[in-house]
């Protein structure tokens, strides 16, 4: 899968910008598919938690990890929107900004999401490895602030 992806991205003489657009598109489609699958997982878990919890606190405790994954899905969606906006600015400014450096951070949030989902659903990171590999193909390191 990764090989097919790499060929489709860089093997046909396309520019980095068009490859980046495709990377964002594939990532968005991946997130959409994951979101639809996860909605069912969340729904089932919520019904069981409601049935078994005596108090709101119990319910929240049961749903904690599911809620965290849902929050992460929203964060990845926001990150994809931001990346697309950044790419637009990059193109409008004659490709003189540092947009490509930010893609490493996008790959990082994607990896974080799928690690969470792996713990909950068994949908391991390997199932979306192509999306992460593709984003990482742009290189760069995501500089995280030190605590």
């Amino acid at each position, binding site marked *: *899968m990764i090989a*097919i*992806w790499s060929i*489709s991205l860089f093997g046909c003489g396309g520019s980095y910008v068009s490859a980046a*657009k*495709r990377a*964002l*598109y*594939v*990532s*968005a*489609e*991946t*997130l*959409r*598919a*994951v*979101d*639809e*699958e*996860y*909605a*069912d997982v*969340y*729904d*089932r*878990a*919520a*019904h*069981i*938690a*409601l049935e078994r919890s005596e*108090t*709101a606190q119990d*319910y929240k405790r*049961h*749903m904690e*990890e*599911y*809620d965290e*994954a*849902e929050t992460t*899905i*929203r964060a990845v*969606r926001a990150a*994809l*929107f931001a*990346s*697309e906006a950044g790419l637009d600015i990059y193109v409008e400014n004659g490709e003189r900004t540092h947009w490509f450096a930010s893609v490493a951070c996008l790959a990082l949030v994607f990896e974080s999401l799928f690690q969470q989902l792996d713990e909950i*659903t*068994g*949908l391991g990171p390997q*199932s*979306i490895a*192509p*999306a992460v590999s593709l984003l990482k193909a742009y290189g760069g390191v995501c500089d995280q602030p030190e605590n």
Partner: protein
Amino acid sequence: MTNPKTSSVERAFKTLDDIFTLGRALVSAISDEDPERVEEVLSRELASSLSRAAAEARARRKYGAF
């Protein structure tokens, strides 16, 4: 939290089905001649966010203040 009502076999089949669905979406996106914009692909409200909102509404009905 694992659903004890769901057997490990059912869970394995569900996971395989999920992976297949994901794979299909990926292959479709890779082979698509004309990539859509992210804002088009993700224009609708997230399904998982809708599930969470509905679940929390049910919890509010059962427990009151939530």
